[in-house]
């Protein structure tokens, strides 16, 4: 059967339409937009005035901003903020993945438990949650692992729940998981059902189908909002004051200002550091999105042109990366 089945001849691209003689270019008076210029000038003037005024205003305490922006304590605190962000996002994404799969489970109890989790953690403020986790060891000083209403088993001390740093990233992660679950679920649902069917028909197991076929395709939908979540988490870490944890960027800035009576310059110092980190993340986000949208609209024209490939126009093509997302 190797006989006679020819691949499409190379270069079978239809000739470009409309190759008529070029018409005379239109010469017309340009439409003017005087108001655009007026608004631009007014805005620039306002910004300049604000900058000049701010530079001269004593209350900003610019000399303190300069003094503390590279302070050892501040940069150490910035590291704590980064750690909180990274740890809570890692746990949040993993737990979110589990919750998303639970929500898509055919088992109604599993589904309901996941829904209940989301309902509680998305329905209450994260600040309130963090206060609650700070008090957790008062409610449960230790946990008894064993047969209920007997003495069989042993008691696990929850002493580690008094470590504010652990409470902080666990508390943030538990909240984040609820949001990540929805992002992951949307990603999984964005993959055409035919993909799962094709994998099943090939004899692949559920696990293989998820890890090899569904999740890699869902990533394109999951990655961009997850980047946003990282940026959002970096800022949310400032709420760990609720636990209370004060070794993070905002906490240390506040502590210093409580001693020096210079709250405003230290707010600016903290903000500069947050801005630095979010800017870096936004640049990373830009490249990540560019990478994951590759092949969605573009057909890698370099190679397609070389191979003389016709786009499968008009075919209801479930495989085309485009369409969704």
């Amino acid at each position, binding site marked *: *059967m*190797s*006989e*006679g*089945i*020819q*691949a*499409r001849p190379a270069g079978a691209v239809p000739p470009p339409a409309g190759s008529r003689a070029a018409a005379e270019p239109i010469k017309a008076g340009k439409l003017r937009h005087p108001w655009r210029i007026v608004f631009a000038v007014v805005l620039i003037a306002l910004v300049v005035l604000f900058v000049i005024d701010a530079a001269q205003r004593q209350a900003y305490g610019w000399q303190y901003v300069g003094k503390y922006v590279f302070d050892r304590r501040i940069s150490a605190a910035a590291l704590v903020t980064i750690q909180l962000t990274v740890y809570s996002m890692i746990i949040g994404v993993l737990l979110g993945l589990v919750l998303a799969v639970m929500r898509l489970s055919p088992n109604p109890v599993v589904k309901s438990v996941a829904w209940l989790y989301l309902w509680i953690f998305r329905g209450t403020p994260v600040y309130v949650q963090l206060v609650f986790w700070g008090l957790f060891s008062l409610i449960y000083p230790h946990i008894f692992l064993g047969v209920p209403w007997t003495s069989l088993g042993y008691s696990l001390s929850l002493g580690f729940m008094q470590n504010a740093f652990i409470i902080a990233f666990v508390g943030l992660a538990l909240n984040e998981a609820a949001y990540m679950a929805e992002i992951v679920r949307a990603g999984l649902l964005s993959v*055409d059902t*035919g*993909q799962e*069917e*094709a*994998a*099943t*028909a*090939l*004899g*692949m*197991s*559920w696990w*293989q189908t998820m890890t*090899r*076929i569904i999740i*890699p*395709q869902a990533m394109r939908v999951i990655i961009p909002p997850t980047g946003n979540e990282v940026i959002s988490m970096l800022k949310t870490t400032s709420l760990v004051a609720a636990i209370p944890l004060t070794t993070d960027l905002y906490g240390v800035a506040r502590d210093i200002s409580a001693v020096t009576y210079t709250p405003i310059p230290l707010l600016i110092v903290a903000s500069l550091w947050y801005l630095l980190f979010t800017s870096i993340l936004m640049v990373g986000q830009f490249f990540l999105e560019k990478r994951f949208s590759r*092949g969605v609209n573009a*057909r*890698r024209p370099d*190679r*397609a042109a070389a*191979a003389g*490939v*016709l*786009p*499968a*126009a*008009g*075919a*209801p*093509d*479930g*495989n*085309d*990366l*485009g369409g969704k997302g």
Partner: protein
Amino acid sequence: MSAVTPMVQAEGVSKSFGTNHVLRGIDLTVDPGEVLCIIGPSGSGKSTFLRCINHLERVDAGRLAVDGQVVGYRQHGDKLYELKPKEAARQRREIGMVFQRFNLFPHMTALENVIEAPIRVKGLAKGRAVERAEELLERVGLGDKGDHYPSQLSGGQQQRVAIARALAMDPKLMLFDEPTSALDPELVGEVLDVMKGLAASGMTMIVVTHEMGFAREVADAVVFMDGGVVVESGDPSEVLANPRHERTKAFLSKVL
């Protein structure tokens, strides 16, 4: 009645989705090496029946066996027990399926599509799988397209990759679910040619199709389905040229 075990044997196969009875007792037999074409109007249950054969859908009543084994169930004495997912997967990998909308994995190249299941499911070494995949892509006329992503291939090329992907599992039975319905007319021929070659090589095939020319030329038997039952079946020249049943006549007069 031949002495060989039929490749597919259906007796009173029924399936409903809620109150919608899609299959109302299908009886048919496909012998090894035979090509069966199933024709009929849309909604007649053709695709559902095909999906029952590899247990993508569960049969509600009747008996459906592939190569002597009950599909989706284990027989223990007189009783049937539902198969575990692992056992169902083992049954499925012996049955190749080609879908109307190709369902290639878009994040993998043509070659990666073909080697995925042999490596993951059969545990074939990568080198051996690639060798075999290149052979199969050559066989469907796409030997030079192995490194292309599905989005860079035409519909006809994608469907031929899908056929190669199914063949890579060395199935004993191939199911085609309207393999050319989603294609532009000028791309239909290249896919049918591959299927003709496959039939000539002795593969057992069940093809749900609207391509009457293909059915007449390649099929050993044609089944006309309507309303979830087999209305008429037999030799393609008989069924297509001299249908006995009114419904078959009415259908053929519209599509021919």
